[in-house]
């Protein structure tokens, strides 16, 4: 090579600076081990209800193999808007206030990219879904996590939110019921957060992918509070409630200008969500609610069991009100989250996810998913109990 110029960096700066966290190594370790009982899976253990799968097959047989409108099949958007009206009390026009995406993942990406200029700040509750800070950075925004605390049942505390706001804050991202804490908002907190958003003229993305999986009374969607509809993008999908992770269908509903901006990105980068999956999603909304309710009741029972067993094992664990995760406090063991998860895996072959996978605020906790069979939950918690005992004796 000629000259002293250092070789040009092949990967874009904002991508190479994305954290490649230690969690990857942990995941690799889990995947190389045999006979692990996993409470580490963030997706339903149910197979998609048969009637939904059957409708996907039928659509293939009928020859539905084309592109759809960029926004998604109008018939699906109509079903979505009907559902949001009847079950969430939210009204959106299917023609221009709703877009079908490839999972909530794509909806998040589109929404952030459509809103954020380089250097603008985005606030979100942490511990949070692993994608949030990275999605924000990929859009050249600045992630501003607000720590949620056990003493508030991991709901975002309005005063903490107030303190995080600066003149550069443009967007607030909320995820309740929350992955990984299972937290929901109560009405008073939701109302206060809505007020703060209006006062500070913030846009809001509410990721309500776990909304059907809530087991107790909780606040309505943040989008339904005064002054909120016009500033809120409501994100939802089929992965969790209908056990349809592999179908990759989500959607966003909100003000027409924001949906239109999202549509531009989607149109050039994705074109449309796959038609087979859209057909399946339509069936889920038309006829899948009973199946969904059945799965929810099953999750509720598993939740009751896992919370009781973990507390009996000596790990302090709140009763989460939503999603399918518990977030027990492991500080009494004297181990860090990563040490706890690694040793539990090596010594008892039980996989949980270290809380730090969900941001630094997750230190002192691990996430256990109860989207696992009752037998596995019982066996895994027995092993966790043995593990905690062995630590006390050491």
């Amino acid at each position: 090579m000629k000259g002293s110029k250092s070789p040009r960096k092949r990967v874009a700066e904002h991508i190479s600076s994305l954290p490649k966290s230690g969690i990857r190594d942990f995941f690799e370790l889990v995947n190389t081990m045999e006979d692990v009982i996993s409470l580490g899976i963030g997706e339903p253990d149910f197979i998609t209800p048969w009637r939904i799968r059957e409708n996907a097959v039928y659509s293939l047989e009928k020859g539905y193999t084309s592109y759809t409108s960029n926004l998604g099949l109008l018939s699906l958007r109509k079903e979505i808007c009907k559902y949001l009206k009847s079950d969430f009390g939210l009204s959106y026009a299917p023609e221009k206030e709703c877009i079908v995406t490839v999972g909530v993942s794509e909806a998040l990406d589109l929404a952030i990219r459509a809103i954020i200029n380089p250097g603008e700040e985005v606030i979100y509750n942490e511990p949070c879904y692993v994608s949030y800070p990275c999605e924000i950075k990929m859009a050249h925004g600045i992630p501003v996590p607000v720590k949620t605390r056990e003493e508030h049942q991991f709901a975002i505390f309005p005063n903490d939110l107030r303190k995080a706001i600066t003149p550069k804050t443009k967007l607030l991202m909320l995820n309740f019921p929350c992955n990984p804490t299972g937290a929901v908002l109560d009405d008073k907190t939701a109302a206060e957060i809505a007020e703060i958003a209006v006062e500070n003229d913030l846009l809001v993305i509410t990721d309500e992918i776990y909304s059907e999986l809530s087991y107790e009374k909780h606040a309505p969607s943040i989008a339904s509070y005064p002054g909120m509809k016009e500033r809120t993008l409501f994100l939802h999908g089929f992965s969790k409630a209908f056990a349809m992770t592999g179908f990759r269908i989500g959607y966003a509903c909100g003000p027409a200008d924001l949906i239109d901006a999202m549509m531009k990105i989607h149109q050039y980068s994705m074109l449309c969500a796959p038609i087979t999956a859209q057909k399946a999603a339509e069936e889920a909304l038309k006829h899948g609610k009973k199946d969904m309710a059945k799965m929810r009741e099953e999750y509720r029972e598993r939740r009751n069991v896992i919370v009781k067993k973990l507390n009996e094992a000596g790990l302090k664990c709140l009763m989460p009100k939503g999603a399918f995760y518990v977030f027990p406090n492991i500080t009494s063991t004297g181990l860090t989250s990563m040490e706890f998860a690694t040793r539990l895996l090596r010594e008892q072959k039980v996989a949980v996810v270290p809380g730090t996978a969900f941001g630094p605020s997750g230190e002192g906790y691990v996430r256990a998913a109860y989207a696992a069979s009752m037998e596995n939950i019982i066996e895994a918690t027995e092993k966790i109990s043995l593990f905690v005992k062995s630590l006390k004796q050491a």
Partner: protein
Amino acid sequence: MKQEILRILTEDAHISAARIAERLDTTEKKVEKVIKQLEKDNVIIGYKAIIDESILPENAVKAIIEVKVRPEREGGFDKLAKRLSKFPEVSSLYLMSGGYDLQVVVKGENLQDVASFVSSKLSTMDGVISTATHFLLKKYKESGKILHEEEVNERLKITP
């Protein structure tokens, strides 16, 4: 709580009251009380294992028999149906709408057993106009349980 307990028991009649209590976030005592009451009220009529019946010799052959009946002036179909239901060979008996009247499920050790029950007992009964016997060849689903192995798909062991 009744509904939940019944649902759990129909899935697994073998489960203990303590386990049910854990699932429903209540106490064993309360669950026991509800179950006692359900038994007393005849909502729970009995507990029984779902087994592969072909294992038992007396159940090796199963037939569904459609029976057309001349109803009686007093009592309609009931008298004949009640009489029929007393035969141990009859494992279920339903009054049906449509092309025939009674559906009788009969079990026996072999073809002869079932055939002789039909020809000597069933078709000779007063009021029976005709019978059509269908032998069962293969079972795919029984009492809500799918009997063939479904493929298990590998999932990732851990995901965010």
